[in-house]
C-alpha cells in the first residue's frame, strides 16, 4: 500500500484531499478497534481469573442463590449485535446505493441491542452485589452497552454522510462505512466472547 501523499493533490489551503481523509479514517478505526479489544480483554481476563481463583468459593455467589441471567435475552442481544455488524460490513462490499439502507439497518439493530440489554438489567434477578460472577456480568455487559451506544452515535453520523451523497466525496463515504463497520465487527467478536463466557461457561 502506498501510504505517502501525492504532492499534486495539495494546495496552499490546508484542506486535505478526500483520499487522505479516507485513509485516516480507515487506519484510525483499525487502531481504535484494537484499543477497544484490549479494553474488553481486561474483562475477559477478570472472568477467567476470578473463576479460576474462586476465592472463598464465592465465584457464583452465596449458595442457595446463584445469579442466572436469562438466556433468552442473551441470545437476542447476541443476534442483534451480530446481525448489526454483519449488515454494516456486508454493505461495504455492495454498491454505494446500498450503504444507506445497510447503515440504517445496522443502527436499528445496534440500538435494539442496547434496548434489550437495558430491559435485561431491569429484570435481572440479581444485582452487582452478588459476588464475583455478578460483578463481571454487570461490569462487562454494562460497559459493552455504553460502547455500543457510542458506536451508535458514530453510525448515526455515517448514516447522515451517506444520505447526503452529493456533499461528500465517494471515497470518504466508502471509508466512513468501512471504518464503522470494522469497529462493529470487532465489537461483535467481543460480544461472542461475552456470550460464551457469561451465559454458557459461567
Amino acid at each position, binding site marked *: 500500500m502506498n*501510504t*505517502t*501523499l*501525492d*504532492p*499534486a493533490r*495539495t*494546495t*496552499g*489551503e*490546508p484542506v*486535505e484531499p478526500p483520499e*487522505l481523509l479516507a*485513509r*485516516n479514517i480507515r*487506519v*484510525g478505526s483499525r*487502531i*481504535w478497534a*484494537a*484499543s*477497544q479489544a*484490549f*479494553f*474488553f*480483554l*481486561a*474483562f475477559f*481476563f*477478570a472472568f477467567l*481469573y*476470578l473463576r479460576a*481463583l*474462586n*476465592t*472463598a468459593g*464465592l*465465584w457464583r*455467589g452465596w449458595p442457595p442463590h446463584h445469579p442466572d441471567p436469562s438466556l433468552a435475552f442473551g441470545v437476542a442481544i447476541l443476534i442483534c449485535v451480530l446481525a448489526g455488524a454483519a449488515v454494516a460490513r456486508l454493505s461495504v462490499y455492495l454498491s454505494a446505493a446500498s450503504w444507506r439502507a445497510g447503515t440504517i439497518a445496522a443502527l436499528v439493530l445496534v440500538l435494539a441491542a442496547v434496548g434489550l440489554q437495558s430491559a435485561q438489567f431491569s429484570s435481572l434477578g440479581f444485582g*452487582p*452485589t452478588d*459476588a*464475583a*460472577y*455478578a*460483578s*463481571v456480568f*454487570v*461490569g462487562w455487559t454494562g*460497559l459493552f452497552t455504553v460502547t455500543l451506544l457510542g458506536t451508535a*452515535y458514530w453510525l*448515526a*453520523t455515517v448514516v*447522515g454522510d451517506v444520505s*447526503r451523497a452529493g*456533499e461528500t466525496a465517494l471515497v470518504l463515504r466508502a471509508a466512513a462505512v468501512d471504518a464503522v463497520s470494522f469497529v462493529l465487527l470487532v465489537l461483535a467478536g467481543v460480544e461472542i466472547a461475552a456470550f460464551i463466557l457469561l451465559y454458557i461457561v459461567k
Partner: protein
Amino acid sequence: MSATAITVRRPVWRRLIGFNMLTGLVLGIGGWFLGAWIGGQMAIGHDYLVGTDQNDVGIYMGYLFGLIGWLVGLGFANYPIGRLLGRPPTLRHHETGGWTRYFRLCTDHKVIGLQYLFGIGIFFFIGGLNAMLMRTELLRPVEQVWPAGQYLTLVGLHGTMMIMMTSAFILGPFGNYFVPIMIGAQRMAFPRIEALTFWLTPAAGLILMSAIAFGGIPFGWTGYAPLSDQARSGADAYVMAFLLIALSMTLIGINLMATILTMRAPGMSWTRLPIFVWGVLATSVLMALASPVLVAVMSMVLMDRSANTSFFLASAGGSPYLYENLFWFFGHPEVYILALPGFGIVLEILPVFARKPLWGYRLAVAGMFGVTILSFMVWQHHLFVSGMNAGLRPFYMLTTELISIPTGFIFLNAMGTLWRARIRFTVPMLFALAFFFNFLIGGLSGVFLSDVPSDVTTHGSYFVMAHFHYTIMGGLVFAFFGAIYYWLPKMMGVVFNERLAKIHFWLMFVFFNLTFFPLFAAGFLDMPRRVSTYAPHLQWLNDFVSASAYMLGFSMLVFLANLVWSLVFARIPAAENPWASRGLEWQLPTPIPVENFARIPVITSGPYEYGVTGAPPVADFMPAALPAAGS
C-alpha cells in the same frame, strides 16, 4: 469565514464570553454540583449508604457532569451536534485568532503543542512541590510536619500527578508540535481528537487535586485495591482522574499512530523517518493498547466503590490479585511510555551536535520496537513476592532481563554516534549526554530488581524508588529539558540565556545524582517506601537527600527564571536554524506558518546525512507540481 474577519476589536469582557477555558470552568463547576445532586437522588434509599457519611455515586456523577460541562464550555459539543444536524465539518475557524487561541479549543497542532507544554509544566511543578513537602517531612525520623494521612496523600498526589502528566511529557508538547512537521504534513490525522486529548489533561489534573478536599488519596499512585476501596471519597477523584488520563493517552496514541502511518510526505520513506518519530510511533503503540486496560481497571474500581460490585473484594469472591495483574499489565508498558520518547529525543539530538549520522539507525528502530513488544510480557516482575503464580517467576525474570538487550541498542547507537565525532557542547547536548549516564544507572538497578533473589531484598524499599527516579527523573525529565532547549527557539522564536541554561544543567545534574543515589543505600538498609517515620539511624542519610532535593528544586527555579527572562524580557529573536540541523522542522521559517508547508514537500534525503559528500538537501519545498487549486 476568513481569517481577517476575526480581527474586529471587541471589549475584553465580550471576548471572555464564548467557547473558551473560562466558560469551560464555569460550566464544569456548575456541572459538578448538578451531577452531585443527581447522584444524591439516585443513591437515596440504597442500604450501603446507611452508616456512612459519603455518597460515592454523587461524587462520580459530579465529576461526570463537571467533565461534560467543561468540554461543552470549551466547544467540544458543537461539532457532534453540527454533524447530526448535517452541517459540513470545517476546522479553519478553530485555527485563527491571536493569543486567545491558546485558551480555546484550537485544532492547530502547534498551538496544542504549546498548550501541552505549559499545561503539563504547571502540573509537573505542582508534583515537584509535593516532593519538596515530602522531603521536608523526611528531615526527621518522627512525624513532624504532616500527619501520617496527609503525608501519604502527598506521596499519592506526587506519584499520580507525575506519572499521569509525564505520560504525555514529550508526546504532548513535542509529539503534537513536531511530528506532523517532521513527516512533512500540514496537520495531524484527527485534529479535533488532538484538541480533546489536551483538554482532558487539565480536567484530570484538577479532578486529581480535588482529592485533597475529599480526604486525600492515602494509597500511593498504584492504588492497590482493598486499600483504595476502603479510602474515603478522595479515591473517587483518583479513579476519575486516572480514567480520563488513560482515555486521553489512548486517543493521543491512536492519533499519532494514524498520523505517522498515513500522512508522511512523498519521499518520507521508513528509512528516512527521524528517529524521534520512530520513538513516538513505538510509544503510541503502547499507549493505544495499554491505556484501555487502565480505563477498564479504573472502571472496575469505580464500580466496586459505587455499585458495590466485588471485583477486588476477597470476602465476596473477588481478588486483590486481579487488580494487581490488571494494573501492572498497564503499569509496566506505562513505564516504557515514559522511556521511549526520551530515547527518541536524545538520539535525535546527538547526531546534530556530533555532526555525524545516527550510527546504527536500524538497530535503534529495532531496539525501540523490541522494548515495545517485550514490555507487554513482564508485568509480574512487580509482583515477585505477592504469592501469585510463583511458578512463573523464572519466566518473568527472563523476559524482564531480555529488555536490557533492546535498551542496550540505544546505548550502542549513542556510542557509535559519538565515536570520532565533532562534539559541540550546547545545552541540549549536555542534557542528552546526562540522560545516558542517569539512565544507565537507572536501567542497571532495574536488573537488580529483575533478579528475584535480589528483589526479595529490595521490593517495597527505597531501592525501587531510587531506581525509578533514575529512569524517569534522570531519563525522561532530562530528555524533556534537552528537547525544550533544543526546540524552543523554533517553537517560541526566542533564544535562551545560555549562561543560565548551563547553570541550570549543572545544578540539576549534580543535585539529581546527590538526591537519588543515596536512596539506593537507604533501600538496602531496609527503609520501606511510603513512610513518614523511619529508623533513626537513617536520619543523616535522609537529611542529606532532602538538602540535595531542595537544591534540585532550586535548579528548576533557575530554569523558570531563564524561561521568563528569555520569553518576556530579553526576547532575543532566534535564528531560523541556530544548530545548523538537517531536521525538516529547522528548514521552515520561524514562526512556522499555520499550514506548516505551503505545499507538501517532497523529501529527498535522510535527516542525518552529516558529513556525507554530495548529500542533497532534505526536501524540495516547492515541488514542481500542479499549481495550487484556486490560483
